[in-house]
């Protein structure tokens, strides 16, 4: 997938703002910024551990469960300590742990959450989701510029 910054956005794009993470990743991929790739998926699955292990750094992007007033927030992620792959899907920290344990390396990783207002059936973002999408993409671009300048 990439050896640079990998942005994995996940969520259900048929559940309105739940899909904002996936839309952020698609936007990043469409930008075509060198050294930064976007990958959108409905949910995190085990095979992501392979490309994650090969990325220089990873940002997971998801809709925030903290309500529409929550800010776009970026937090450092560590691999899960005692992880359980409960379902067909996994948490970001679980994917990191899988990358470490199955493929030998967990890169630096962050979790970017974007505020969500409407999680009902629908294939459009709410005004809150649209603002969050724009803000998240800008945040990621700035983050990538900062890392590239280091």
């Amino acid at each position, binding site marked *: 997938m990439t050896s640079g910054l990998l942005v994995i956005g996940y969520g*259900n*794009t*048929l*559940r309105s703002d*739940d899909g904002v993470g*996936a839309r952020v990743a*698609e936007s990043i991929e469409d930008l075509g910024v060198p050294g930064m790739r976007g*990958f*959108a*998926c*409905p*949910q995190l*699955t*085990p*095979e992501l*551990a*392979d490309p994650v292990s090969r990325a220089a750094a990873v940002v997971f992007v998801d809709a925030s469960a903290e309500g529409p007033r929550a800010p776009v927030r970026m937090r450092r992620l560590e691999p899960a300590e*005692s*992880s*359980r*792959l*409960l*379902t*067909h*899907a996994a948490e970001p920290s679980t994917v990191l*742990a*899988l990358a470490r*344990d*199955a*493929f030998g390396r967990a890169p630096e990783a962050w979790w970017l959450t974007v505020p969500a207002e409407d*999680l009902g*059936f*629908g*294939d459009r973002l709410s005004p809150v989701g649209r603002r969050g999408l724009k803000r998240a993409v800008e945040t990621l671009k700035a983050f990538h510029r900062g890392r590239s300048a280091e």
Partner: protein
Amino acid sequence: MAKRIVIDPVTRIEGHAKISVYLDDDGNVTDAEFHVVEFRGFEKFCEGRPYSEMPGITPRICGICPVSHLLASAKAGDAIMAVAIPPAADKLRRLMNLGQIVQSHALSFFHLSAPDFLLGWDSPPAKRNIFGLIAANADLARAGIRLRQFGQEIIETLGGRKIHPAWAVPGGVRSGLTEEGRARIRHWLPEAFATTATAFDLFRRTMASCPEEIESFGNFPSLFMGLVSSDGSWEHHGGRLRFTDSSGGLVADQVDPAHYRDYIGESAQEASYLKSPYFKALGLRAGMYRVGPLARLNVCERMNAPRADLELQAFKQMGRGAVTSSFLYHYARLIEILAALEHIERDLDDPDLFSADLRADAGVNNLRGVGASEAPRGTLFHDYTVDRTGLLQKVNLIVATGQNNLAMNRTVAQIARHYVRGETIPEPMLNRIEHGIRCFDPCLSCSTHAAGRMALRLQLIGPDGSVRREVVRD
């Protein structure tokens, strides 16, 4: 005084659900139910949209089996247009479905069920997962992940890397296979075959060491349903429906999937959002049927894949007529992976895959269209009714997990009767009940069309409705 145990939610399956186990005064299990507590509403959401949009919408129901919805939806569109799609389009759709079967079965076997096989039913739950599997056998765990990657590679090679490619469309597909894509898929095949062989070795050992589980995990007579070709061979995308009974006898054969409503009734349960389809002629109680790998192998006579056919012969010897143990869904899953790999290997040589003739065009010629395809978990129906302009008036989706609902209830009851004694809920018992559900690899996002995740709660409830005991697992 009767009591009830509830497991809520069930782990390592997709969606959100709980299990209730009913006990009598003496602590004996009298019945059990598998509930789905997510709300369905997707079919209503689609009404008023053009049918041609459905292949772009329905894959979003589920992140695990989007290809199944994509293909069934495109086939429903074919029926509305009343077209025969170009042969190349049919072959390419089949190739993608084989990739879907491989990736989905690999996830089910290696990540969700193999921890029980390799680490043991009674091992600590904190270790009985993919990480425990890595600790015990990193090569196997990694190979399982890569086998799933291989299936995904086929899907992405054909459909692109977009999150929900509307690659299959009413009338055909948007693009064919490239030489580069074929080479990429072919490159993976030796590793995929080797991983599958390793999985067979593991599961043969499991079968040898688990006679009690084979006997008690959903082992009962039922009907089986799946698509077969005109000569009774294994089908996964075309063909017609076949129903067989537990003696292996034909109940209905070569049924046009468009006529499914003549054969399948749908019952709603008060305690669950999951519909319970049944074979109409026998009614709800006697008409229970199973779908998915176990059923497909029971209803077919051959798989037209030499190595898989050898395994199929061995599989069929495990039953008298039909193989009735739901525990052997796992074995059937491996046989289907092997058959899929053999079909992929052979199909890659077909020059039609590179044809430019990929799509038939027509307007609305039928006001109703049914598309049926074999999803990894079983037969999937998309039934659309449209107006003259092609806007959807009604949508009905019958998914595999729903069709297995009655059998999952019975499986839970059988396992609980075998292992539950009194009001204590030891972890290994809990895990065995959960595993009974995992045999079916249910996908509750699909069956209720809801976004959701599955996690586990077990409740013991007395006849007065009070919770006597509860175990919760996040």
